[in-house]
């Protein structure tokens, strides 16, 4: 439900007339076969004909729910949802790199960690305004991403996955190694000094809410706004010329190079942007939880991002957000209900879901949605077509 004209009749209008005896089944095949690997080439589609009322209404409903939710929930739930927002932004970044550009990263957890630590260090040591620290995290991670993107030019596919996996494994160890300023395995708290009864003490950082809002709700709205901005910018990027070259490189880098696309530059930029978004996600994670420590940035985190991207739908803009909510509901709401001895069942179920998705629906939830919408459209076209 992102960028494609979702109105079924519009899609049908672009197909050859259904009255032709062979065309309808063909249309179904082309729809399900569009993905070269994952996701679909929906980027290239143009704006919808006429105003998409259904889509606009859907967005209004989604935003209304997102805004009402924090008023109906306990504080700890709102905090959990803030965590989902961080995950969604990072997954959005990973999606640009892996979903659209085809460079597989199993190491975005490390970039997320770099973002989180950057924010924690800046806020605690220099007392910058919190959101400025988020911007700084984005910049630091963007530059880190450019640097990682350089060797990635020569390392492709499975091998890139291997190198990034090693980065993800290395990150917590590096935090431990440089304990003198990262706090080592005990981590860092995000604090700022304040005067309290004549003495200076450190208090945990927080966003001071305007009247009427609780601190957690205000925090949630700030993060939600940042996320909306990130997703909007990603959507525009993907629809731009750069976005099209990203997809072209994923589908065939040799052909892209021959067509005059500066493949190396685009791939490096993709890495930078992707890393920058992961950094913003990490920064939000740090601001939300108020502390960072290496055990929050293990290899598992990189895997969560991949899960969010793949379950939601690689190479679709809202896919990672849907995947992040799916993952959040699964981990924060369903798992705690399980009896203690059955809790490890969660990763087992996630693993099985991942494998099944790859076998049955590589486009994830968004892909399933699209395929079913197209099928619906074809059926409608069939029933309304004049019988010859």
């Amino acid at each position: 439900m992102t960028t494609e004209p979702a109105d079924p009749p519009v899609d049908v209008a672009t197909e050859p007339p259904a009255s032709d005896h062979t065309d309808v089944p063909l249309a179904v095949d082309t729809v399900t076969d569009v993905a070269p690997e994952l996701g679909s080439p929906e980027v290239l589609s143009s704006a919808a004909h006429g105003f998409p009322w259904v889509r606009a209404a859907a967005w209004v409903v989604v935003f209304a729910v997102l805004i009402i939710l924090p008023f109906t929930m306990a504080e700890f739930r709102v905090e959990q949802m803030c965590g989902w927002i961080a995950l969604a932004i990072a997954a959005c970044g990973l999606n640009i790199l892996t979903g659209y550009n085809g460079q597989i990263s199993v190491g975005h957890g490390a970039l997320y960690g770099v973002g989180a630590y950057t924010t924690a260090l800046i806020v605690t040591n220099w007392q910058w305004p919190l959101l400025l620290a988020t911007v700084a995290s984005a910049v630091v991670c963007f530059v880190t991403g450019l640097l990682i993107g350089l060797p990635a030019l020569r390392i492709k596919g499975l091998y890139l996955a291997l190198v990034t996996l090693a980065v993800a494994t290395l990150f917590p160890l590096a935090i431990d190694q440089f304990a003198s300023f990262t706090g080592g395995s005990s981590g860092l708290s995000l604090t700022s000094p304040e005067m309290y009864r004549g003495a200076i003490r450190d208090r945990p950082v927080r966003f001071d809410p305007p009247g009427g809002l609780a601190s957690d709700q205000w925090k949630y709205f700030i993060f939600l706004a940042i996320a909306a901005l990130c997703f909007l910018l990603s959507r525009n990027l993907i629809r731009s010329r750069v976005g099209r070259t990203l997809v072209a490189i994923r589908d065939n880098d040799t052909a892209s190079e021959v067509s005059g696309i500066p493949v190396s530059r685009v791939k490096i930029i993709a890495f930078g942007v992707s890393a920058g978004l992961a950094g913003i996600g990490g920064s939000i994670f740090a601001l939300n939880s108020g502390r960072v420590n290496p055990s929050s940035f293990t290899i598992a985190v990189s895997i969560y991002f991949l899960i969010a991207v793949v379950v939601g739908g690689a190479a679709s803009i809202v896919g990672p957000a849907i995947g992040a909510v799916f993952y959040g509901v699964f981990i924060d709401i369903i798992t705690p209900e399980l009896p203690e001895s059955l809790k490890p069942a969660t990763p087992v179920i996630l693993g099985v879901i991942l494998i099944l998705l790859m076998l049955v629906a590589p486009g994830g939830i968004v892909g399933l949605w699209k395929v079913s919408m197209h099928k619906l459209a074809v059926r409608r076209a069939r029933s309304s077509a004049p019988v010859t």
Partner: protein
Amino acid sequence: MTDFLQVLAVGIGDGAIYAMLGLGLVVVFRTTGLLNFAAGELAMFSTFIVWTIWDLGVPLLLAMLGGMVGGFLIGVLLQAVAVRPVGDPHERPLAVVIVTIGLFIGVNGLAQLVWGTLDKDLPPLFGVDTVSIFGVDVAWQKIGAVVVLAILAFVFYLLFQKTKLGLAMRAVASNSESAGLVGIPVPTVLMLGWGLAAAIGTVAGVFTAPGRGLGSNMMQLTLIFGFAAITLGGFDSLIGAVVGGFIIGIFSSVVPQYVPGFEKMPLAPAFLLILAVLLIRPTGLFGRKQVSRV
């Protein structure tokens, strides 16, 4: 000097373990062309099977053989059910990576589900005694690891070079389509490749467990070292896995000891090696160059 030899001995012992896991990774790469990110978790799982059998009172060596059989069956099963249906790793790398990562977290969770989250104790296969060589105390366990690796490597060599099955495996590795056309049962061979890899992984797990404690995350570092070993040696070379394993083992034991800034990061030198090899000589020391037609 004695200190250095001591560190070297530790590195060689660890290197033997990395080489064992590396052999399994090479077998999977040669037959199916994929990097198996779940190899460590499979090894961990079958090591738990070894522990269960040993816990029943069976001698550890027999228990290990039992675990190898178990690992073999699990490997065969997972290849058939999860890995093969996804398709060619070089055409759909992301899908294959996702599936092996699905196996990674799935098998990890399953081990916790079955055996709980507390570490188990598995005794060293060769006991806790040490022997003095050139004034250096070397644990029999380390020497045992090298000997077992030598045996495994020799068996693999015989299997690949001297048996019909090995010939079939090499044929499938070099061109699975043509191999299928001349009557080699390609799917079975691929399944056997995974089974063999899982079986040898069990041995790596049995040697890793006593030092690190038998828990569901024990093989994750070892896996990266194993990958470093085969990257250095060449992804498709058995001898490369062995040589690479020793080099990585020695490197990651010596560097943190003598180079400041690496004390808590034995993985860092291995990582730098992976990166350098992939950038400068992607085929590794012994690997063959992959040529693809465009």
